[in-house]
């Protein structure tokens, strides 16, 4: 066990997987010096051929990754910010995600797209939106959003070893957060959620940066005698709906907490699933807490009014009691 930052965990995962499998390589803007995602230093070990600084050409680079993936390599494409995926969406959906299916199984596209997702650091409208619902809605992608450094390491290793295209989202506001990381080949399988806190009264489903906020809300609520169970699906697609449904079967109450926008967001999906499949267990209307449906404002005061707060989570839990 060692305490490491989220970014350091990512770097460890990348380095370990690149050592393990020579077909894994990394490309993106400034991956050599590294802007965010813990790519700094890898160039020294793996050289020009496996740590490739690309032009600022998200669409082209995302698509080139697919070409490399279907011809035998395992690219990791670092596109820096989630919102830059808007530029690459065509190649991600129409090529990476669709190739295997539309070609009748002839291809596989083991590729990881890696970005920072969401807001919280006053980066402004163009850099701060949480984009995961888009990738949850389009078919045939896997979507991962770890809520702490340990999960980040384990899930990134799983994503790299997976034979399918994976969107790997690091919550922007967690970049510097630290967690204890198990030694060795720490691996977290895709599609498995985790109960981050046990509780008998209410089930919260939250991912990414919202997990910590939900845990803080749970502590506050515990003082009022309300025991909240906090589930982190970790993988958003395919997600561990059984874990959530099983929990709701026990608690009978459900709150979905997600940073993305409220309409067709992750919280919408979780709430719809619970009401569809655990209806008979529900003692109260499921509640959603999502980001406000506006572009991300720059001012810290405004931005924190847009991103779900601990208070809002507390209030939502109280609504279901």
């Amino acid at each position, binding site marked *: 066990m060692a305490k490491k930052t989220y970014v350091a965990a990512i770097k460890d995962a990348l380095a370990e997987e690149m050592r393990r499998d020579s077909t894994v390589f990394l490309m993106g803007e400034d991956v050599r010096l590294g802007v965010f995602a813990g790519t700094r230093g890898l160039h020294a070990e793996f050289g020009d051929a496996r740590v490739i600084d690309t*032009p600022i050409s998200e669409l*082209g680079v995302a698509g080139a990754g697919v*070409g490399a993936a279907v*011809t035998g*390599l395992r690219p990791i494409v670092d596109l820096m910010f989630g919102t830059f995926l808007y530029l690459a969406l065509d*190649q991600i959906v*129409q090529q990476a995600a669709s190739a295997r299916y539309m*070609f009748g*199984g002839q291809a596989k596209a083991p590729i990881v797209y890696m970005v920072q997702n969401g807001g919280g650091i006053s980066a402004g409208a163009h850099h701060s939106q949480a984009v995961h619902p888009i990738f949850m809605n389009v078919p045939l992608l896997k979507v991962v959003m770890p809520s702490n450094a340990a999960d980040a390491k384990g899930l990134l290793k799983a994503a790299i070893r997976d*034979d399918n295209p994976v969107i790997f989202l690091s919550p922007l506001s967690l970049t510097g957060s630290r967690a204890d990381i198990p030694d060795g080949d720490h691996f977290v399988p895709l599609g498995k959620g985790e109960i981050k806190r046990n509780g008998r009264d209410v089930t919260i489903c939250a991912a990414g940066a919202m997990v910590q906020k939900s845990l803080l809300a749970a502590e506050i609520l515990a003082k009022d005698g309300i025991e909240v169970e906090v589930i982190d699906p970790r993988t958003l697609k395919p997600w561990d709906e059984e874990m959530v449904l099983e929990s709701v079967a026990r608690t009978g109450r459900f709150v979905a907490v997600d940073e993305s926008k409220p309409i067709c967001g992750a919280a919408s999906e979780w709430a719809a699933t619970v009401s569809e499949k655990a209806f008979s267990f529900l003692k109260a209307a499921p509640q959603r807490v999502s980001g406000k449906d506006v572009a991300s404002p720059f001012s810290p005061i405004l931005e924190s009014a847009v991103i779900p707060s601990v208070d809002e989570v507390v209030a939502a839990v109280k609504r279901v009691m």
Partner: protein
Amino acid sequence: MEKILDIYTRMLRIRRFEEQVGVLFSQGQLPGFVHLYVGEEAVGAGVCATLRNDDYIVSTHRGHGHVIAKGGDFNRMMAELFGKATGYCKGKGGSMHIADFSIGMLGACGIVGGGIPMAVGAGLSAKLRGTDQVSVSFFGDGASNEGSFHESVNLAAVQNLPVLFVCENNQYGEFTPMEKVTGVRDIALRAQGYGIPGVIVDGTDALAVYEVAQTAVARARAGEGPTLIEAKTHRKGGHAEGEKAFLAGGVYRSAEELAQMQAKDPIVLLHKRMLEMGVATPNDLEELDQTITQAVVESVAFARRSPDPKPESIYEDMWV
């Protein structure tokens, strides 16, 4: 000599297959959209004749010709066009998504310009794996105005990748003449913006195409980087089959233009040249034609007798 016959064979295979597809479409036998390559055969054939089986190509919405030029199978193609379970993509792809990974044909593509980045990635892959494979991206004049073209060519240039960018300039994107929407007459000029060679070739002259492609392939294999080839060509038919009925009299190509174009049929031209050069006798070529035509007819029969895909198969081929 043999190479010329090889190229001609590829072209004729495309032509006969496509003519049949046109007929089937007009009879309402094929679902979806169909874009024929008729008139442009010299480009795909001339280029693919320079390639090995393990080289890659990535194609467009007008993709049947590329599949055939790379050595694709009539039966599996035709079955795919009929949406049958025996098709290349088990009926999941259709005309705009035919692929044959066993011959390095990485797929047609319904998105204009959408295949170009993939071809660059295949070239990158060859470089990183240390093979001498090359990768060819076919795309249209219209596609050269997509951002994907720009980003892809630049990426291949700076990474010095073994990629041929082959622009099939048939002078139209759908019904819009290129000069209305393209700032430059010669797409090949754009190569200068990426510091790579740009070559113009008569795309109705298969042997000329073969030659420039050979040079570009040699460069690529030698690790000298990408080339942009612009093949000036034309499509004999509409943008898509059924266009005439669809446009209901909305004409966009003049009679003169159409007549001029008819006079430059790449297959007629090569046929004539082969006889002049003594590469083949009229009889040889007639026999070849019959063999091909027969194979096309058989592919239709194969497609017809093939089973439909099972509805449950929508859940197959999702994730590995």
